[in-house]
Structures are given as structure tokens and as C-alpha cells.
């Protein structure tokens, strides 16, 4: 079977810095996989390349058998590849329902389902139905993360890219979002690729981890394998002075999780 997503020799350089360096891997339809890597490893840049927000210097991305080279972001969304952002980016000045409705207006889905009803159903599915009419400005951060996922779901994706869906969440808020992602994978048959820089959250969630460092894929395998992988351990422990964006040091996580 041809993979749903096939990345080959992808490269992206910013001035002197190689942010994504010869990355190749593929995802089978129905798979749920994670990209692991310390801050600055190039994970978000990889997502930006896959979704057309950045143009790669070389390499190819095939989605559903089609080369995505040169396609603008909205067209890639309409092929069924949706993403969320690492920092929540709600549409300011609009209600929660309206935010999701915008996704429901994507040409891919708008003719098959009434946008408003579909948006309500999606809010129900992510547990935001009670907030439908609230302006996004009043949402707590955990709900913004759900909204971010809801808006991507609204476009009717086959592959969902989640950029650090747990970023900024406390320990008690992570589990419900994790359960939501598992549910989307299990019941909707969605293929999911998510980024996380703490291995702990991956253990129960994904079947495969792709570990990156300095723009390269350094290891790939089941979470249990990755935990013991010497290059992954080195990537984390070798830089235990680093502090992550959420203010927690990622150092030692592989050991803690093992």
C-alpha cells in the first residue's frame, strides 16, 4: 500500500542555519505517530514545509500520491492535510462557533454539510459545545487548545498535524486532550502526526516516534525503543541546561519515562 504521507530528502535552511536536514519518513493511513525533539530541532519548520507555509530548498512531500510542491497552504488543506499551531491562533473578534465555522467553509467540506450544524457537532466532539457563543478572548488556555484542534477538524482532514497540542497545559489538562486525540484516531480513523518535546506524553498515545535533533531524524521506532535509544538520550541529557518554552527542562525525561 502506498503511504498517505511520504517525505523524501526534505531540506530547509534559514540564513546559515539548517533547520530541516535531509528528513525522510512516511506515514501509513490510519497511523498515529509522534515527532520528538528538543526545542529548535526543526519540528515546527517541518510542519511548515508539509503545509505550504514555507517552501523547501529541496526534497519532496507526497500526500495521497500527489506531490505538494508549490501548493499554497489553503490548497493543501483542501487536499485533506490540516494542522494546528504551537501557539494557539484563534480568530480574534469572533465567537468560538464562528472560529470553527470558518474551517467548515473550506471547499472540501462546505457543500456536503451545513457549516453551522457541522461546527456545532465538532464543538460537541471536542468538548467545547458549552462555549459555542463565547468570544475567543475569554477562553482559558486549555479550551483554546481544543479550539485549535476543532478548527483543523472542521476542514475534514485525512491527516491531522498537531504542533505541541499539550504546550502550556498543566498535568491535569493534558490527559483529557490526550484522550481526545486517541478518540479522533480510533473513532474517526484519522491519521495523526503530533509534535511533542516531552517523551512522557507519547508513551500511551502513539505507535511510532520519530526523533529529531538539529534538523535531522536521529531515530525512529516504538516509544519503548526510543526511550532506550542512545542518540535520543544523548540529545536530551547532553543539553540539560536547556529550558523549554513551557518553562520545564526537558532534560532527563527519557529516564523519567522509562
Amino acid at each position, binding site marked *: 500500500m502506498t503511504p498517505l504521507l511520504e517525505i523524501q530528502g526534505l531540506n530547509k535552511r534559514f540564513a546559515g542555519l539548517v533547520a530541516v536536514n535531509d528528513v525522510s519518513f512516511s506515514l501509513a493511513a490510519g497511523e498515529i505517530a509522534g515527532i520528538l525533539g528538543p526545542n529548535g530541532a526543526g519540528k515546527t519548520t517541518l510542519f511548515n514545509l508539509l503545509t505550504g507555509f514555507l517552501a523547501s530548498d529541496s526534497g519532496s512531500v507526497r500526500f495521497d500520491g500527489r506531490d505538494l510542491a508549490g501548493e*499554497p*497552504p489553503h490548497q493543501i488543506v483542501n487536499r485533506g492535510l490540516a494542522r494546528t499551531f504551537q501557539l494557539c491562533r*484563534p480568530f480574534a*473578534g469572533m465567537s468560538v462557533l464562528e472560529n470553527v465555522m470558518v474551517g467548515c*467553509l*473550506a471547499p472540501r467540506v462546505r457543500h456536503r454539510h451545513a457549516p453551522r450544524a457541522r461546527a456545532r457537532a465538532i464543538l460537541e466532539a471536542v468538548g467545547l459545545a458549552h462555549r459555542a457563543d463565547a468570544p475567543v478572548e475569554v477562553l482559558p488556555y486549555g479550551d483554546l487548545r481544543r479550539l485549535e484542534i476543532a*478548527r483543523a477538524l472542521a*476542514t475534514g482532514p485525512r491527516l491531522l498535524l498537531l504542533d505541541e497540542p499539550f504546550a502550556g497545559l498543566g498535568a491535569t489538562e493534558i490527559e483529557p486532550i490526550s484522550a481526545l486525540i486517541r478518540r479522533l484516531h480510533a473513532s474517526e480513523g484519522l491519521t495523526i502526526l503530533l509534535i511533542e518535546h516531552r517523551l512522557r506524553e507519547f508513551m500511551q498515545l502513539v505507535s511510532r516516534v520519530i526523533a529529531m535533533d538539529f534538523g535531522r531524524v536521529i531515530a525512529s521506532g516504538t516509544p519503548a525503543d526510543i526511550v532506550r535509544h542512545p542518540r535520543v538520550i544523548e540529545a536530551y541529557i547532553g543539553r540539560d541546561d536547556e529550558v523549554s518554552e513551557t518553562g520545564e527542562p526537558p532534560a532527563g525525561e527519557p529516564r523519567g519515562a522509562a
Partner: protein
Amino acid sequence: MKGRRATGVIVVLAALAALPLFIRSEYLLGILSVCFIYGIWATSWDFMSGLTGRENFGHALFIGAGAYTAAFLNGKVGFAPWWGLPAGAAMAGGLSLVIGIPTLRLRGPYFALAMLAAATIMQRLTLIFWQYSGGEEGIPGLDPLLESKAAVYYLCLGVFVVITLALLLLAGSHWGLILRSIRGDEAAAQAAGVNVTFHKIAALVVSAFCAGIGGVLYAHYQEAVTPDVFSVALSISIIIMVYVGGIGSLYGPAAGAVLLALLPELLRGLGQYRLWVYSLVLIFILFFAPEGVIAPLWRRVTGGATGGAP
């Protein structure tokens, strides 16, 4: 809530429609006609810039394009004045494509600056190509669209109301939602499947088309056109009217423009202090009510929610 709004709108419209029965002064009816034209300009500015958040510093480009097209066809070529309406609107719409297509695909200030520059350049061109545009004096001696001042009043009021309602309907539609998402976060809109460049350009064409119609009405109301219709001062005063009315609401700028255009007349009794008072009122409003005045007030009176169309 909806009922109160509908009642409010009907009362205001009925009062405006009945006004010529009480006002016999042709001068005053003329002033009010111009107020409605300002209303068209402000509402059309708000449709593009208020909804998508891309500010346009040269709305006068579209106004002047409409006005000069109408004046040229009527004053120089000798067409009947009504031809100006479709021709002026089409000219403004065409110019909006020329500016919008190259600049709206870029982020940053390119669009705003290109609009400012284009309007200024057009003002210079009217001086350079004076054989066609009449230079400094412009093109005088145009035919009015309708003979009586009361008829012109109703024409301007009618076009103003139709354009405002049409733009409000669009703003409240799915398309309006898409345009507002671009203002909310352009990258996120792309991630939600929105072709942001296309929608910004389409909104600009609609905005230009309506502003052009306003420009045609203005030229024939004045029975003349001068290079001032391309001026930066006009573009800026429209933006001020929108901010006073409440940006992004369309009806706020519509009402704000009519009232602000009327204000200098109401202050006429103050003589030489008129401009001072006018400016102070504006500064006061923009300083103490950054959300504008009309739209928030209307929402409070009719008990509406924030944002969006009424």
C-alpha cells in the same frame, strides 16, 4: 432583540425619507445628499478594511476614478449622465484589481502604501493630462443626474441605503465570516482553508465598486469635478469617519460618516472657531472611545452582542 433593531432601522429610514417634506431649503437638502455620499464611501471602506484588517490609505483613488470617469463621459464626450454610474463603478473596480493583485498577496504595508501612492499619482496625472481632465479647474458644467434637489436627495439616500444594506448582508454571510477570519489571524485563516489573497482582492473590488458609484454621484451632484477627489485629505477623513462610527460594523461608519459630514454645517454658527471645535470633537472621540461611538451605542440601545453585523 432583532425586532428592536428592525424597528430602529425603519424609524431612521422613515425619518430620512420624510425630511424633504419639512426641509424646503435646497441648500440643506444638498448638504444632506453629500452626507449620504460620504456614508457610501465610509461603508465601502469598512467593508474591505474593517472586515479584513488591511487598511486602505487611498480610498480617494476609487472615488476619483468614478468621479472623473463620469465627468469625462458626460462633460467631454457628451454621454447622458446615467452612463457614468456603470462606467465609473467599473473603472474603480478595475483600478482596484491593478493595485490589489500585486500588493494583497504580500504581508506588510505594501497595500496601504500603494493605495496612498496611487491616489496621489492620479491627482498629479489630472494636472499632466489637462487636455482630458481639465487640469487644476477640473471638468465643470456636468449635467445633474436629476433636476430637482429633492430628487437628488432621494437618489443619494436610496443608493446609500441599498449599498449599506447589501454590504451588511454580505458581512453577515459566510463570506463575511471568511473576511473577518483574515482580520483575526491571516495564517490561521490559511490553515483553515481560506484563500486569503483571493478573498482580500474580491473584498477590495466590491469596496472600490461602491466607492466609485459614490464618486459618480458626487461629480454629478457638484456638476463638476476637481482633482480634490483624489486627495489624501479625503482618504483620511473617510478613515476618521469609520473609526468614529466603529470600525468593522459597517452601519457604525455609515451613520458616523453622515453625522460627521453634517457636523461642520451644524457648527456654522461658531464662525471662525468651527474647525477648532470640529477637530476637538474628533480628537475627543478617538481618544476616549477607541471602539468608536455609533456602533457601541447602537448595540447598547438594541441590546445586541458585540461584533458582526446587526
